[in-house]
């Protein structure tokens, strides 16, 4: 008797499995078939397969990309960027610069926070003061170190006075981390993790960690008729194979995948691959205080031993371009590195330089990298092999993310493989990473010429002159090679055909304001 029960139960389980398989097959087929009928679907909620859980939602405090992609839809800044990375109005309608150290912003009128209250110059003042307050521990604090005073001129006018000319100022004002927040909301809640009240196109409905973040349409968004969607739901799917399966079956509308999986997604029906050149670049960093990397010849030899094309081909399946200190997607600021002598593989020359430095037979070293990102591990493996050609025996040390950051901060490494974002102003690529006092100069690198150029770059307001300064600075960084820049990868979004009006760009990879989901 009992045995029959068992058989019955097994049958039920199998049937559930099959049934659920069939029922879903049905729905996804419908979606496929209706891909091009041209009618908006009844449910306008965009489902995104999210590869990483956000680390927090306070725009002033959390620099993680996984967080930015969400809070950038909730908050606005005074300014924003266009495709050439030039600043454009956002919450500020226009701005003036009466002299080199004064900026006056005129705010857009009638912009409402998600709680219904109108945004005023007081909120702008409060937001910047919050960033600049030591207690907040904001990552954007150093952006505004040169701000001497903020003055509310009228409810729609605000004046910033700087202590000295500071060219990156507008770029930093346009940063997502300089978001305008509502004063009373911060004061009521103490922080901005649980609640998020901004002026952006979407409102935060719910964040269930490791499950989903739900955003819904801001009906009062200041741009007429936007957003068209009723909501956006980020579904946490950390596993790449899960995201691939989910986008194929139409369980999500948009997701990201690594270069390796792109050919698979390309073959699938009903999806489209959209790519853009990212502002990120992969690099090799040296600890220039440690032997033998204190010798510039050794660093140059390694630069000559590296085949950057191979990095692009093997690690990124060809979907990456060579990059210098400032990647191509930064438009006017980038220089063409393909002609740089140090960026052409030349084993003979590399061996010569090593011999001159006194390492004819090469040496042993350790390449540290983060295990969290397969592309970094792959890059490290490839470099390990390339360096063998000039007698350098490298061991790979994979570090878990927290440990990697620690190693990074403490300069506790010999060679380090990583990937950085160039941000929005060239000061980050030069001053932040390579000037002696730069807060991200973890290489122990110090060069008078770079320091001087970085300072000039910060204080020169004229854009054309700035471009010249940064061109020179980049050449100097390449020559001194405290870091070797490798490639700047393309980023991919895999999008269902039913998603209309979506095109990712480096400045706004996830602008869903015009997106409509078709039947």
């Amino acid at each position, binding site marked *: 008797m009992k045995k029959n029960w068992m058989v019955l139960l097994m049958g039920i389980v199998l049937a559930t499995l099959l049934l659920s398989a069939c029922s879903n097959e049905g729905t996804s087929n419908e979606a496929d078939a209706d891909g091009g009928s041209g009618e908006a679907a009844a449910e306008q909620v965009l489902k995104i397969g999210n590869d990483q859980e956000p680390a927090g939602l306070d725009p002033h405090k959390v620099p993680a990309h996984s967080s930015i992609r969400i809070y950038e839809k909730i908050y606005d800044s005074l300014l924003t960027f266009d495709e050439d990375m030039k600043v454009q109005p956002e919450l500020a309608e226009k701005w003036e610069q009466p002299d080199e150290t004064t900026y006056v912003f005129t705010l857009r009128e009638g912009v409402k926070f998600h709680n219904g209250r109108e945004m005023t110059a007081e909120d702008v003042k409060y937001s910047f003061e919050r960033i600049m307050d030591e*207690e907040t521990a904001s990552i954007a604090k150093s952006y505004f170190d040169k701000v001497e005073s903020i003055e509310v001129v009228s409810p729609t006018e605000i004046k910033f006075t700087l202590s000295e000319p500071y060219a990156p100022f507008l770029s930093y004002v346009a940063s997502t981390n300089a978001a305008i927040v509502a004063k009373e909301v911060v004061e009521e809640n103490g922080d901005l993790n649980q609640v998020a009240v901004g002026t952006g196109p979407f409102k935060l409905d719910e964040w269930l960690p490791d499950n989903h973040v739900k955003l819904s349409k801001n009906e009062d968004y200041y741009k007429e008729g936007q957003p068209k969607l009723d909501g956006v739901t980020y579904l946490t799917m950390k*596993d790449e194979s899960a995201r691939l399966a989910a986008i194929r079956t139409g369980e999500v509308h948009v997701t990201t995948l690594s270069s390796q999986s792109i050919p698979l997604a390309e073959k699938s029906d009903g999806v489209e691959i959209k790519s853009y050149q990212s502002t990120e670049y992969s690099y090799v960093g040296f600890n220039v205080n440690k032997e033998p990397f204190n010798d510039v010849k050794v660093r140059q030899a390694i630069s000559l031993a590296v085949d950057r094309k191979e990095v692009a081909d093997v690690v990124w399946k060809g979907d990456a371009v060579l990059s210098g200190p400032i990647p191509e997607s930064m438009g006017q600021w980038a220089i063409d590195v393909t002609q740089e002598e140090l960026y052409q593989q030349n084993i003979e020359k590399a061996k010569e330089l090593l011999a001159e430095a006194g390492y004819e037979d090469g040496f042993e070293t350790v390449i540290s990298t983060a295990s969290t990102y397969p592309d970094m591990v792959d890059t490290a493996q490839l470099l390990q092999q390339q360096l063998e050609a000039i007698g350098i025996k490298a061991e790979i040390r994979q570090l*878990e993310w927290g440990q990697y950051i620690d190693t990074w901060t403490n300069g506790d490494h010999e060679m380090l493989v990583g990937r950085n974002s160039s941000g929005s102003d060239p000061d980050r690529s030069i001053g932040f990473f390579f000037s002696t006092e730069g807060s991200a100069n973890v290489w122990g690198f110090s060069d008078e010429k770079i320091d001087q150029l970085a300072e000039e770059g910060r204080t020169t307001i004229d854009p054309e002159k700035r471009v010249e300064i940064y061109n020179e600075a980049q050449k100097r960084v390449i020559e001194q090679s405290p870091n070797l820049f490798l490639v700047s990868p393309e980023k991919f979004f895999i999008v269902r055909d039913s998603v209309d009006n979506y095109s990712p760009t480096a400045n706004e990879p996830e602008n869903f304001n015009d997106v409509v989901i078709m039947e």
Partner: protein
Amino acid sequence: MFAYILRRLLMLIPVLFGISVFIFLIMKMIPGDVVSTILGTEATDEARRQLEKQFGLNLPIYQQYLQWMGGVLTGDFGVSLRTGKPILGDIISRFGLTLELTMLSAFISWIIAIPLGIVAALKRNTSTDFGVRIISLLGVSVPNFALATLLLLVLSLAFSYYPPAGYVSLFEDPMKNLQMMILPAFVLGTAMAGAVMRMTRSSILEVLRQDFIRTIRAKGASERIVIFNHALKNAMIPILTIIGMQIGTLLGGTVIIEQIFSLPGLGQMVLTAINQRDYPVVQGAVLFIATVFVLINLLVDILYSYLDPRITYK
């Protein structure tokens, strides 16, 4: 009996205390702290110091422990350093998922393993026995992340099927919930089935050899009655032990499957928190899992004595 349970419960106190100290210290020993992981490459010394102060990480280590433990003892597990969410509420809602997944996997493993175990025992040393043993061992031998990846791949390519995304609990939407849970439970269940099968087989073999079964047989009872009414009942004890142990292990051991199937369970909670060095979350969740684990073991021991009157406890 009551005194025994009470004594066992009292013995849990030092163990749980030890666990809390162990997990607290080990989290402090992991290189890289929560401040580094939050600030990443944007860290300045100023911001670091400020956050350390806010999180109380500048206090002496024993004070940090006492503060945390003091909170836990009064039912306050604190809030996550990353999300600001209260930890206990999160643990409880995730426990629901993990418990359901565990029970479902255990259930699937039983319906595969117990019938097979009975058959194998009855046909001991025949080719049926060998066949059953080989099949059930195969399930244990496949790394479950490989099986899960393969399953998702095959289902999505061949049947265009993917379990519904975005977890909902059993109470919100039972049908959707079951669709999400059945695949991961199947993967976990096949891995557990091997051990349950062999335990069933050997327990039945042992029971069948005992005198009382011979007596029943001699009285002319049919084989079916012998097996189901008598042998199985007595064989349940060791089977129950192994099931209890497996449930305990699964509570935190489903982490990989949760990740592949995007389920926000306890395992994911601990894993994410370890990666982010979210100390109070790891500490709270691990302490919770360990407590449930030791309680389940205790429960199994008690059931044991209930099912087998020969066992007495001093």
